[in-house]
């Protein structure tokens, strides 16, 4: 092949290439979790295809840790991760409002001031 690329020129592609396309079966996928710094949460970032956990970690390092900061990576077989269905997300909407779980909804200052005025504590 007449190419501008010296590496392509060096390959004897015509002689080497077996033109049959073999469809391989698949390597399994691994879900990858990334921890940026010590003390931070470990966060899901994506997947890699790999035959075993060791290779999955090596490929995850190339794919998800080649720039920026990384302290650790975790991998888990996709098949071992159990999930709800995204379409069932209404089950998390149990009651219309949950202000009783919200610190900002507890306001006592008005009551304290009123009490202080009534009892001459100011």
């Amino acid at each position, binding site marked *: *092949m007449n*190419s*501008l*690329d*010296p*590496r*392509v020129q060096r*390959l004897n*592609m015509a002689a*080497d*290439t*077996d*033109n049959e*396309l*073999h*469809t*391989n*079966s*698949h*390597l*399994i*996928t691994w*879900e990858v979790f990334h921890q940026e710094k010590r003390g931070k949460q470990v966060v*899901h970032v*994506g*997947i*890699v*295809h790999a*035959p*075993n956990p060791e*290779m999955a970690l090596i490929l995850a390092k*190339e*794919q998800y840790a*080649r*720039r920026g900061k990384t302290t650790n990576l975790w991998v888990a077989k*996709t*098949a071992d*991760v159990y*999930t709800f*269905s*995204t*379409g069932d997300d209404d089950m998390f909407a149990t009651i219309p409002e949950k202000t009783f779980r919200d610190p900002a909804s507890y306001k006592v200052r008005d009551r304290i001031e009123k009490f202080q005025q009534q009892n001459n504590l100011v």
Partner: protein
Amino acid sequence: MYGSTNLTEQEAKRMNDTSAEDADKLQAFEDRIARGEKIEPDDWMPAEYRKQLIRMIEQHAHSEIVGALPEGTWITRAPNFRRKLALIAKVQDEIGHGQLLYSAAETLGKTREQMLDDLMNGKSKYSNVFNYPAVTWADIAVIGFLVDGAAIVNQVINSKGSYGPYCRALERICYEESFHLKQGHDNVVYLATGSKIQRDMLQAAINRWYRPLLHFFGPPDKMSAHSEKLMKWKVKLASNDDMRNQFLDQYVPKILELGLTFPDPNLRKNADGVWEFSDPDWDEFKRVINGDGPCNKERLAVRRYAEMAGRWVREALMNPSDKYKIPLA
């Protein structure tokens, strides 16, 4: 366009006909998108939505993989060590982006092996721009600045789409591409402010890439079939002409300010803020996309060679008792 959403008249007609879908589910799906929510892999989705997304994300992934080839050509001949490091990193990123995009497409049910096969047997396409050669080092500068600039325009727009895994992949990709763009600009400015030989080499490269860059966003709106569904479903978010105009608006001034030119006397911004240019020969675009470009054969032959030469490694790693499962997100 990186991932093409250009339809034939027939495809557009089929897309707009959703009579075969469950009306209630379709309504809930469209309402969710209208509210600005994302669709996740295990949600119900219309068959055409799945099909068009697979096609678009797959083409985008192939574009990243094939796009690494013209640039890879110059790794061995980069002019200094810093440029060589940056180019290696960029090419590595492009392959990584391909992997992220294949992952996103896989969540829709097409396996990665099938996508790689379809690239090699010519069933699925990749961006036309990579069927042109990088003749000199200055082509690397122009690719890094203008081709990546065009890709970013396209990708930033697509990252506002409705499919969760594609958006997540694109956010990560756009973040990394900003380094590609900056190093490309640096490279262009360095050549533009250098010796006469360097300037001439850069100008020649700009002249070579001008037409492929106009082709990048696909045929003009008046020449392509439309589907209101693709827009409504937020698969396509801007028309080809709008994206092309946005690109010209951002990048033409950055070339002109260096005292360089484009090989088109009709390139100018009109009073309405719309860029006008000479007809970039859409027949050439069609010819090249259908296989008759300067590098189509080489690109596929190299990809095929890599597949064949690496097969024994993949086969050696295969564990026959493992069962493939579609990734989660």
